[in-house]
């Protein structure tokens, strides 16, 4: 961490011409998801608690935006409001310029806890949203087959969720959320429960899907590297109250690959995120725990 802070890194705002050009074109695209001065208060024991305050955000078509922040910053509340599973106490939300509220398949969601329907096979899980939209059984089945193929699970289309690994379950969840053709795909720490190796695979997989599907992604995470690896822009929230602290345009060029993790742009972005999220950690020494020696003299492990 100290090597990061002292290294001679470029500013995270400096972009190569290609990246700058990409952002210019990105911002010319229509805005798909717009959040205007969104606020959310909860009634606590000692009066109202502000979980989110004055959140304004515009996400362009086929942009991949990550939301990151310390625990308790309200990032989960934010994505639940966008999904329509929670009501904002202030502000409004627009999809394709039209105000919207409540859950709707135009905003698909992938949850951290998989939430696959355990009584349905992989295929029937993916068909669920299509059937809810009133699509006939045969058509829905054909459509579902395509999505299952896209996430590479053809062999498992007749398996039940409990027979799949965590990574496979989350791929089914992504296919299920994408099948009804949402404008926005919301992902709430979807890879948080996976082991490091599977998570890296899933990130690469997600970018692959995003490249091939016309969908805009809002992705919640607490993993800094995940945010930089995936995002066009990173929204950094701060806690108490949950407000937008900064929106970072990730200068790492696309297409992304794992080798970029040690590139100067990546490290500069990471340094900036660390400054924002753990501001005091660099200089404040760790609190010393009041330990009493409970081993014999000379019996040392370090």
């Amino acid at each position, binding site marked *: 961490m100290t090597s990061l802070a002292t290294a001679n890194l470029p500013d995270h705002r400096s972009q190569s011409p290609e990246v700058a050009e990409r952002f210019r074109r990105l911002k010319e695209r229509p805005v798909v998801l717009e959040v205007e001065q969104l606020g959310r208060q909860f009634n606590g024991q000692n009066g109202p608690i502000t979980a989110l305050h004055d959140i304004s955000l515009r996400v362009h078509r086929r942009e991949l935006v990550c939301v990151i922040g310390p625990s308790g910053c309200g990032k989960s509340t934010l994505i639940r409001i966008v*999904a*329509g*599973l929670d009501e904002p106490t202030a502000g409004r939300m627009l999809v394709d310029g039209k105000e919207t509220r409540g*859950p*709707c*398949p135009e*905003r*698909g*969601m992938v*949850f951290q*806890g998989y*939430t*696959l*329907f*355990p*009584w*349905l096979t992989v295929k029937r899980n993916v068909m*669920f*949203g299509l059937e*809810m*939209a009133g699509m006939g059984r045969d058509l829905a089945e054909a459509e579902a087959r395509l999505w299952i193929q896209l996430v590479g699970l053809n062999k498992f289309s007749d398996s*039940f*969720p*409990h027979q799949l690994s965590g990574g496979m379950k989350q791929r089914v969840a992504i296919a*299920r*959320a994408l099948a*009804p053709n949402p404008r926005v795909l*919301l992902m709430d720490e979807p890879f948080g429960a996976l082991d490091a190796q599977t998570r890296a695979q899933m990130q690469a997989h997600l970018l692959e899907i995003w490249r091939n599907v016309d969908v805009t992604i809002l992705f919640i995470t607490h993993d800094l590297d995940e945010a930089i690896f995936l995002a066009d822009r990173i929204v950094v929230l701060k806690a108490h109250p949950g407000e937008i602290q900064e929106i970072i345009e990730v200068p790492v060029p696309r297409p992304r690959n794992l080798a970029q993790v040690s590139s100067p742009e990546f490290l500069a972005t990471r340094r900036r995120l660390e400054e924002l999220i753990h501001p005091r950690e660099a200089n404040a020494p760790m609190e010393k725990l009041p330990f009493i020696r409970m081993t014999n003299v000379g019996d040392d492990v370090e």
Partner: protein
Amino acid sequence: MSRTRWFAIGQQLASRARVALTLLSFLLPLIAWSLVSYVPWIWHPLIRVGSPGDVAWFKQGLLVDRAVFAEENSKVAAAGGRLSEGVRANPIFLPAPHAVAKAFYTAFHTPPILRDELWLHQSLALSIKTIFLGFAISSVVGVPLGILCGAYTPVSRLAEPVIDFVRYMPAPAFGALAVAVLGIYDAPKIAIIVIGTFFQQVLVIANTVRRHDPALIEAAQTLGARPRQLLLRVVVPSCIVDLYNDQRILLGWAWTYLIVAEIVGVSSGITFFINQQAKYRNFENVYAAIIIIGIIGLGTDQALSLVGQHLFPWRQTRPSQLAAFLGRLFSMRNVPVFFRPPGPPTES
């Protein structure tokens, strides 16, 4: 394989040990019963008179208290008469296992004593009909109402307090009322079963449905499910396995109401058979009939468990001991009955 640790909490047993314990749980009471029946110095508080000797009122086969027998014999001995002889015996209400085992056969083959009485199998059929009609009527209303209570708080607040109240009224208390309203034949009996099952059923089903996973509801909402679809396509399927197991347990409860239900109005079914046989002092038939009820109950439950495994492939219901046992029995594996020398260990 390592030695089985019997008392580690939550420890699964090897299948051989499990089967052995299952058999033992039936064998232990049977052994206790056999000891009391066949070992003359255990209990046996009476004497069955063999030859009456000079005791005037003794007859062959008479059962008398041991103290009375000794007293009468001492009187005869004092008068210099022939002593009465006999063997220690149990009271007539405790027949020996073999007598009950024989009754299983004879009870079905003995024609009824009175002309209008029913054969045992007819009595059983009547009882089973009463149970299943009562349970079906209760379920037709109770299951949907329970699901609505579990899913929608207003329905729950409207229905559950009064159901909770009525639940504490013992079903047999409605017996006289049921006869007054429904007559003396089958209808009031079915009504008692319905009353005994319904109120518990609504509460049990509602509680199960309330335990549904809210995350699945949210997932379905983001996929465009509307309220009706949420109930029928998410809430109900998500707890269908638990509901099925609830129904199995509730069917067991319905059986416990059978006996009180059948003495309402004209006594009928297996209860009538039991009472009648007790009147004739054929206690082995009484035991046989009671055990048959147990066998029917357990058999139904195990059959339903087996059916459940095929209905819900995504989740095992409570594993059926009997089905597992029969499966092993037919494949001749792991059954203690076929003791074979232990082969080379297959698991390490």
